[in-house]
């Protein structure tokens, strides 16, 4: 039903995501809703998330691509720009969204965010404080959480 009048752009993007996946990222549309994607992001090397497999959900709203996709982490993650509901603080998902961006660029940006946490623009106040006060310890916690929750069971 929801898929009957899917814009060509979404179809093309989906085809390309499946045929040429970005390294460390997989995104596949749900069978009953082509606007809903199951996403996996591998923790980038040399980040506290290395070795983890993080599940996310991505939804393309009716206004897409004029409005940004809605993305959220399903896997628990210790990161200053991601809150405990998995919501992500990323400018291109908000005011910096442009219709010329794509699902692929969004997921690559999220991957980059895992490599470079930004405690100065926090979503999770406590984690950001921790990060600023004692980065070594915070990174340890992030590694610990990755082992606990993202070990790709």
């Amino acid at each position: 039903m929801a898929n009957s009048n899917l814009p060509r752009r979404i179809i093309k993007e989906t085809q390309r995501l499946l045929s040429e996946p970005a390294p460390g990222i997989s995104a596949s549309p749900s069978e009953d809703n082509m606007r809903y994607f199951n996403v996996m992001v591998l923790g980038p090397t040399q980040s506290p998330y290395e070795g983890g497999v993080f599940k996310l959900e991505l939804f393309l709203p009716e206004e897409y691509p004029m409005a940004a996709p809605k993305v959220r982490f399903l896997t628990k993650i210790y990161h200053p720009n991601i809150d405990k509901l998995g919501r992500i603080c990323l400018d291109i998902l908000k005011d910096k969204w442009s219709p010329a961006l794509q699902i692929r660029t969004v997921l690559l940006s999220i991957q980059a965010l895992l490599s470079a946490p930004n405690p100065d623009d926090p979503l999770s106040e406590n984690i950001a404080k921790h990060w600023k006060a004692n980065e070594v310890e915070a990174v340890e916690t992030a590694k610990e959480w990755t082992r606990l929750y993202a070990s790709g069971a």
Partner: protein
Amino acid sequence: MDSEDDMHDANDLESLDDDFYSGETGMGSDDGDGDYEFGNNASDDSDDGNLNRQQENYTVLSEDDIRQRQEEDITRISTVLSIERDHACILLRHYKWDVDKVHEAWFANEESVRQTVGLYENPVARTFSRELLCGICFERHPCDRMCAASCGHFFCYSCWRGYVSTSINDGPGCLMLRCPDPPCGAIIGQNMINLLASNEDKEKYSRYILRSYIEDNITSKWCPAPGCEYAVDFVMGSVNFDVSCNCSHNFCWNCTEEAHRPVDCTMVAKWILKNSAESENMNWILANSKPCPKCKRPIEKNQGCMHITCTPPCKFEFCWLCLGAWTDHGERTGGFYACNRYETAKQEGEYDEAERRREMAKNSLERYTHYYERWATNQSSRQKALQDLQNMQNVQLDKLSDTQSQPESQMKFITEAWLQIVECRRVLKWTYAYGYYLPENEHGKRQFFEYLQGEAESGLERLHQCAEKELQTFIDSSGPSKDFNDFRTKLAGLTSVTRNYFENLVRALETGLNDVGESGNQPTCSRSSSIKSGKGKNGKTRTIGGTTSRSLDDGNHSHWSCESCTFANTKSSMVCQVCHRRR
């Protein structure tokens, strides 16, 4: 030496005074400078009856005025910089409509301005093919179905329309809309919007541009009155923030609260906060009903002035604020008008009478209650006066000119009286906030303040009563009355006397009550008989302050100046009339 300096100062102050008063000293400022002379202004067409008579330091702008100014600014920039109007508008928006800043920045470094603003001279992307892929819908389109901003990034019309419409419907941020290509900062101007947007969106966009001219410009603000569409452009650096909008709303340009001269913005904010914190305790004040102090029946206040007469058979005349007999008020008994004073009220035990007030005292709200009640009552009294003024202008003056067989042009003194009442109620109201915050241990200041406030208030009560009640008898009368001309003289006289009292009060408060001695502000000799009689066409003899007192001081030594509060007392009194200090 000393005395010469004093002389000099005195003269300076005198000429200062002349801006506010009639120059009755004959110092030569009477003619030519356009300052009005109080007492003669009752039928002067040019007077607005306002306390603010200085040069206006603001301009009220209608929507047409705003558009015109905006167009003029755009034209100036477009001409001087030799750029398109569309681009001039973009630059002005970026620099908050500051024409000088645009000039300055542009001529300092045009290239850097173009980069920051996103106004590119040469497209960064160029293409010569006939068909292009649109980066939004991922379809190929012939080039003539596509367009680009100054950067040359092409997208199809359909995607542009979606892009522009989404942005416009997101709010005023659309004025900063940039090319959809992610790292590109090329700005989208109104020309492109007009090419791509629906009529409804174009209208919205142009309203945003109009609004930005007021909201982004540091010298202008919208009038805060609900539904009012005027804006006010302010001359920055002016001391007086009170502005009067064409919708008749008076407000403070600085804090956008209602006009509150002579009280400053900080005190107003504090007072408003206090009021909202205490609002539950103060509801009974706003209920506008009190028991008659004599027969105890509930009396509702449905008039502006504070002189209340209980319904028959009681007919007791009392003061709404202090519940004392009206006969004890002001001039008639020769005593001080004191119902503005908290201490007096407390001493006389009025606050112990009512149960509620005792409760208030318990909660240490008693003092606040005193000031709040007077503040709130003057507020509602002003509201009432505004209605009466309108009713006067729309209905009553016409009727009056019929019954008195006098042209309506002869009735201007009535409008002026009402304008004065409205303005004075506003000032008086705020002086109660001032009184509340005036430190209790500053006895000299407090006494001086309460004296001036009392004078002003009692003058205003006389004026209000005259305009409200005495006037009614002439409106109701069946034919011309021979007393009408006397009434005119009386009302016009009261108007100018009251204006004078209030000017004194305002000035004293604005100088922090500091110049008690020097400026000639002191209420010397104010209690002249002509106030009572209301006679004397031009009322010049009853000036308070400045010149009269000085001439008395200097001349016949009939007064002595109190060392503590500087009040000029008559020779005969051995104790200061204001602060009771011995001579």
